[in-house]
């Protein structure tokens, strides 16, 4: 049930991407696709500015170009949507008393990523543990799953200050906030995945009079791996968000949280700095999810084909 390859003969193009160079170089393909999408976004972005942004003027050497857009949309103004070149240029502007913005953001991203990773690992273990408990006890599942679901309806931004005050303003409480966002998708996927083993294999294990831990270890856990990994990808992105949100009340200055805070407060004077920070949050999430994807490909070599989506 996990293998799409064994599922049968598939008309080409319906399920799998077409062959050729892109199939032989999946990494290159990803890069090209990402580049394409970014180009498309950039094009749409500047097209909106050209059509309905604020007037602009470029002067390169003796050549000046002035453009007055025919329309004026609020969402395309310089405050709403700064020019891409302004955003790129601001990356090379130094942060007051510090390195250029790009270097500062990279450092902040790494700091955040490290905390996120702790929260992610803790959340993954917690989620998996809960999943294991729940598939073995219908009673506990019935009793506690509503609380697990309910926990996710509490706005994290309301929880984060409590965690930070209770545990002290340190990276540990930030990681706890990240854990809070991470464990949920993993727990849900674990419940599903740990039940997704082949019924016949289950009967086989019964015929061996296998113990519950043996069934768990040899059957349930392996069956849950694809489910877990797709949840871990979701969790990776969530842990980045959780970390940034946790950094706000913790007052930690090194991470992306502080950058977000600073640049949101001064958005009106330098919108491009917040946009650059938003982009680096997005990149951080992408990198983390990419790492999980790599780990998945590495650990499950040949076992199953990871889902494209």
């Amino acid at each position, binding site marked *: 049930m996990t293998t799409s390859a064994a599922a049968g003969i598939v008309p080409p193009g319906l399920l799998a991407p077409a062959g050729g160079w892109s199939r032989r170089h999946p990494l290159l393909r990803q890069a090209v696709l990402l580049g394409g999408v970014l180009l498309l976004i950039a094009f749409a972005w500047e097209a909106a500015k050209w059509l309905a942004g604020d007037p602009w003027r470029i002067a390169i050497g003796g050549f000046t170009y002035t453009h007055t857009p025919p329309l004026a949309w609020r969402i395309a103004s310089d405050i709403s949507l700064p020019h891409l070149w302004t955003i790129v240029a601001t990356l090379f502007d130094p942060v007051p008393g510090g390195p250029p913005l790009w270097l500062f953001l990279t450092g902040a991203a790494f700091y955040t990523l490290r905390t996120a990773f702790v929260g992610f690992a*803790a959340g993954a*273990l917690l989620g*998996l543990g809960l999943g294991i408990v729940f598939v073995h006890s219908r009673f506990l599942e019935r009793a506690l799953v509503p609380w697990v679901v309910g926990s996710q309806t509490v706005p994290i931004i309301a929880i984060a200050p409590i965690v930070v005050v209770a545990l002290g303003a340190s990276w540990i409480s930030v990681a706890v906030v990240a854990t809070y966002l991470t464990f949920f998708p993993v727990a849900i996927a674990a419940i599903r995945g740990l039940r997704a083993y082949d019924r016949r294999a289950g009967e086989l294990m019964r015929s061996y009079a296998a113990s519950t831990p043996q069934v768990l270890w040899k059957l349930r856990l392996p069956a849950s*791996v694809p489910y877990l990994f797709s949840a871990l990808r979701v969790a990776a992105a969530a842990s980045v968000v959780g970390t940034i949100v946790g950094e706000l009340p913790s007052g930690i200055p090194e991470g992306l949280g502080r950058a977000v*805070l600073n640049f949101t407060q001064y958005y*009106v*004077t330098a919108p491009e700095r917040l946009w650059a920070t938003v982009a680096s949050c997005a990149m951080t999430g992408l990198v983390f999810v990419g790492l999980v994807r790599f780990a998945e490909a590495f*650990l499950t070599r040949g076992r199953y084909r990871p889902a494209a989506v």
Partner: protein
Amino acid sequence: MNKSARIAGMLVGAAIVAAACSSGSASPSAAALIPVKLQLQWVPQAQFAGYYAALDQGYYTAAGLNVTVLSGGPDVNNLQVVASGGADLGVSWVPKTLQSREGGTDLVTVAQVFQRSGTRMVSFKDKSIVAPKDMAGKKIGSWLGGNEPELFAALTKAGLDPTKENVIKQNFDMVAFVQGDLDAAQAMIYNEYAQVLETKNPKTGALFTPADLNVMDFNDPSIGTAMLQDAIFARDTWLKQGSNADTATKFLTASFKGWIYCRDNPQKCADIVTKAGSQLGTSHQLWMMNEINALIWPSPNGIGQFDTTAWNQTVDIATKYGILKAAPSDGAYRTDLAQAALAALGSSVDTKGASFQKLTVTLNEGGK
């Protein structure tokens, strides 16, 4: 089979490694110094320059203290942090500290650093809002959450009902104001007001100027609803423990020295704050330093001392407009520590700044 074991193992291992990496940064502290944690009410900026200067100039160390300054932010309740023991001392506005007492804390204000309110209502000239009564029927921005009493008091004084007026929660940025979504917006003279002046007017392509704006000052006698702002507070239980009261006095003395240093060296102090991790632009930082100095100096009774009239006005407004349910109980503030700190500074130091003169600061685009 073993793949799942490997995955689980990897996760555990990774957690341990990451934990080990993240924790090794505690600096070795000198054993002789008394550790003190100060919780700010916002991120590092010149608003707190005195503390950073005391840190930078070694005033705290000289007083035998090892001070850690904890940053605040929009999602940090600094009062909550101190009340639950996450820090020893904090900086907050007086009415907020009083409110927290009604919420069950034992926080005591021990020094009143700012002598004036820094809050303003700004509006563009064409809206013709020059007095509180002009805000009738307008879109009025406020940060709410304890930042509204001065505004509400001014509205009520002008015969308006703040609960019926169109008060909109504004974010901690000035986007809504500049975009024209708000007719009048709250702004701190040392920060948001400057932000507007650092922003290009999309119509002209040049920066906004003070001439574009009407500014209402709550300190103005014609409005007269200013309330006490940045003050230093601590837990009563903490103050009564061991020699903590003495520690607090030492902290106040060194902090006052820091503020005096900043009064005399505004540019250096702005740089110190920037070095401490504030990411504000150079001109913005200096502007803030300058305006903060103007909120402190002159201090007619000496820095950090209470002005009973101002205190009473704050309490009156707060109780009148339901910010406080009742007048604060005794012990909401104590004057002895600040007085002792002032005495410890000695008479050779100018603690009043009677001759203080503001600088003229030019703001650049984006505060650079």
